[in-house]
């Protein structure tokens, strides 16, 4: 894991977690016990789509259907693909799925 970490505030719960530069928001959140909505966790389904309210991220590869260029421009991102490049503030838009 990268030694560089950033703070990610998750507005839905008020939690602030640490997220390594080479981790995704989703992985850091789930491992921290946050019930972040997700399903595929690989950028295909958009269950983890969220508003990026502050900060910048770099996205791992994802499908066109999960996050469009227009959505990106509107400030949305995929927690499962987004790696932090600064401290962040996010707000998830989906509903947690059953197992």
């Amino acid at each position, binding site marked *: 894991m990268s030694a560089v970490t950033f703070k990610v505030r998750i507005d839905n719960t008020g939690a602030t977690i640490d997220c390594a530069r080479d981790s995704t928001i989703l992985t850091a959140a789930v491992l921290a016990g946050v019930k972040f909505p997700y399903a595929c966790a690989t950028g295909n*389904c958009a269950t983890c789509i969220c508003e990026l309210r502050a900060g910048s991220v770099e996205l791992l590869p994802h*499908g066109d259907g999960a996050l469009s*260029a227009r959505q990106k421009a509107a400030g949305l991102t995929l927690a499962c693909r987004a790696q932090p490049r600064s401290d962040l503030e996010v707000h998830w838009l989906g509903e947690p*799925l059953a197992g």
Partner: protein
Amino acid sequence: MDGLSPTAARRGEACAALLREVRAIAASDGITAASLDRFKALLIGLAARPELFPDSEFPMPEAQGRNHMLDPAADDGLGFYLTIGLPGKEAAPHDHGIWCVNAALSGREVQRFYRRTDDGGRPGFATIEQIDELTLEPGTAMAMADHDIHSTLVTGDRPMCALALYGYALTRFPSVVYYHPQFNSMRTLPSRRGAAVRG
């Protein structure tokens, strides 16, 4: 075939012929390991005709993954697509709930296969282990039965283009179950069949 390029018209005829054969095999033999093997051979044969699938008629993804429908006439029947994934594009282990066959046109994709190792007794919890792996590249294909679990990763430096045949159209899939070994979890993406049928 008005408005279609000559290539698209030939492609449409070739795809329709393949689907007729698939439906005939399914009707006579059902969906078995042997019939899936026959579907693989059909897809490899079609994928060996790259002139039917020119890049100019199948735009690359805006991001890293895109599906082009090859059988627009499908209703609640088979789903037939040309899929494109750019290097690094991946899908976590998942169970489509329906059989599928993929044959590569170009590029390379690692497919890993898994089996579930827990008893399914805890909601949201699952453990899996890898049982097989293959690299899909031109001249090869893979087939999965209804509830097999696989993951995919496009490797190398070229886009992975493949023919993908499913037992249902993607918009009408049964629910898809994703498995996440790093969390020992599973998540079920609800079926889109209801919404698709309602239109």
